[in-house]
């Protein structure tokens, strides 16, 4: 899947989850860049992203993601 399309869809998910239409994510985006992105919201985010792209992240993948770029990388490989 084209990473441009992935970012578009990912932006929509971020905006829904954090209820903020001004959010635009890129490969460098981390939890530090979005005010409400704490460990609890991270759980919601993971659930919403997995639904959007119909993928299931393994525990190891979730634990090792350092930024949005790495998340997109996994989605690129696996999403349908």
């Amino acid at each position, binding site marked *: 899947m084209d990473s441009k399309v992935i970012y578009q869809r990912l932006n929509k998910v971020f905006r*829904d989850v954090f*209820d903020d239409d001004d959010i635009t994510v890129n490969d460098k985006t981390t939890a530090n860049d979005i005010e409400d992105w704490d460990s609890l919201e991270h*759980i*919601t985010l993971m*659930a*919403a992203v997995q*639904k959007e792209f119909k993928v299931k992240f393994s*525990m190891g993948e979730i634990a090792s993601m350092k930024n949005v770029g790495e998340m997109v990388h996994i989605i690129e490989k696996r999403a349908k």
Partner: protein
Amino acid sequence: MKELEYPFDSDYIIKKKKSIKRTLLADGKNRLKKKIAVFGGSTTHDIIVYLELFLLDQGIEPEFYESEYSQYWQDSMFPSEELLNFSPDLVYIHTTSRNIVNYPSMSDSKEQSEEKLEREYSKFEQMWKKITETHHCPIIQNNFELPFYRLLGNKDCSDYRGRSNFVGRLNQLFYEYSQNNDGFYINDINFISSSYGLRRWSDPSYWNMYKYAMCTEAIPEFSFNLSNIIKSVFGKNKKALALDLDNTLWGGVVGDDGVDGIQIGQETGVSQSYYEFQNYVKTLKDIGVILTVCSKNDHENAVAGLEHPEGALKPDDFIIIKANWENKDRNIVETANELNIFPDAVVFADDNPAEREIVRAQVPGVAVPEMDSVENYIINIDRSGFFEVTNFSADDLKRNEMYKANAERAAQMASFSDYGEYLLSLDMKAVIDDFIPVYLQRITQLTNKSNQFNVTTKRYTQTEMDSVFQSDEYVRLYGKLTDKFGDNGVVSVVIGKINGEILDIDLWIMSCRVLKRNMEFAMLDRLVERALARGIKTLRGYYYPTPKNKMVRELFKDFGFTKTDEDTNGNTVWELDTGSYEKKNTVITVEDNSSIAN
């Protein structure tokens, strides 16, 4: 809100929880404010987030106390200052199989496994007693879901050393406590997890990564189920089910196909499905749900369809049959008026999406479940929790009879020209006296259900009512009314707090099914009599306006009280001198508790 009604889309709710909350809070609705303390044995954050959404949607605005991670036992046994100040209206204990510490081991004897069971159970019982003692409020406690693996395979459920077996026995002990203690409710996580699918529910990664005891995608369903208990405890259940007929209670259109042509009974799979649904509806009557018909049909055709020999429901099962060609929203409002309930206490079941849409749009607050295909009817109504049973009183069993008798009274009234004569003809007998234990549950239920004839709209939990009952600082009255058409049960409650020579009337409520029967005057007569016996010179009444209690704005004036105060919000205070009071009731024969003993 449609998005929060069963069958809802959990993924959508998870993604949109923030904007859903924003929308709910902006709708300007008047909600019941309740304080809920959540004691968790695992992460409870999202459970509270979704619980709040569902409660807001059901007319309750919750404020939460959330215990620190897994501090359920500490918060129960050693309440902090913060918790005491919070003063919860309800405590919810969110424990799961993950919190069981005394599972039997393979080398245990039967006795040792019993000891472990006892140890595990008594920890909980100790907590519940302590919570009741400290907070005097209802408790909701999870039972336990099945563990996610079975060391003994299929034998795990039957062998005393199996964890599945242990969980089952522990649950039984919880149920026994629930049967013996009012105000203690089980949140059936065992059912919800199996309904959701235990395999997905108990995905261990959610526990190991986030310390959630279930997968987070399941939490909306879980919280919805929990919200149903809470709204029921706080008196927000629905009361009536208004049913369409054609393609709802039977297959086909009785007006076109004829009685012999409709599908109901044992002939085919479809007719059996309708029969099963009719049977389900009939049993709703047994838990006190009022049944009515709301159908576009000629009346004769409707009744003929209901008289189908293969059907489970009969015309007699319905209090009101509206079979006409009027718009359904109008029929629903009229049905509510005739039953003396608010339209938002009605559930409207119709297979036609257009009719559902009209009623949903025109009648605010009415519940309109999806009725897309007959095999889903039962599940959709059942899972919606409209009629969630928490306190099940003898009155619930008789409610349909009472509404039926009401309809007969209305017919008799039409034959009298003088209203006083009509009242006398009813041969009314009342028992008006201090509370007795057998009615405490019904009394509490009434305080939480009455909205219209209710001057202060003060609500009591079962535990609070128990302490009012134990105290000698109150004058308490309940009123039970019988007439020649039947027993109305306990219909009125008055609670006055003794304040020297003044009696402050904390609560004055009456069920609307006995409006205009002079029951309120009979209550007042008795109240003055009891007040005088306690040396009280003045009765002081309070009226606090709500959107629903306009009917009693002038109640104290009609009683002969004098208004002594009024503020800008329309709150009024009234006083009555007991010394010069003259009895007002002349149509009801009043007795006391001794008449009930035999």
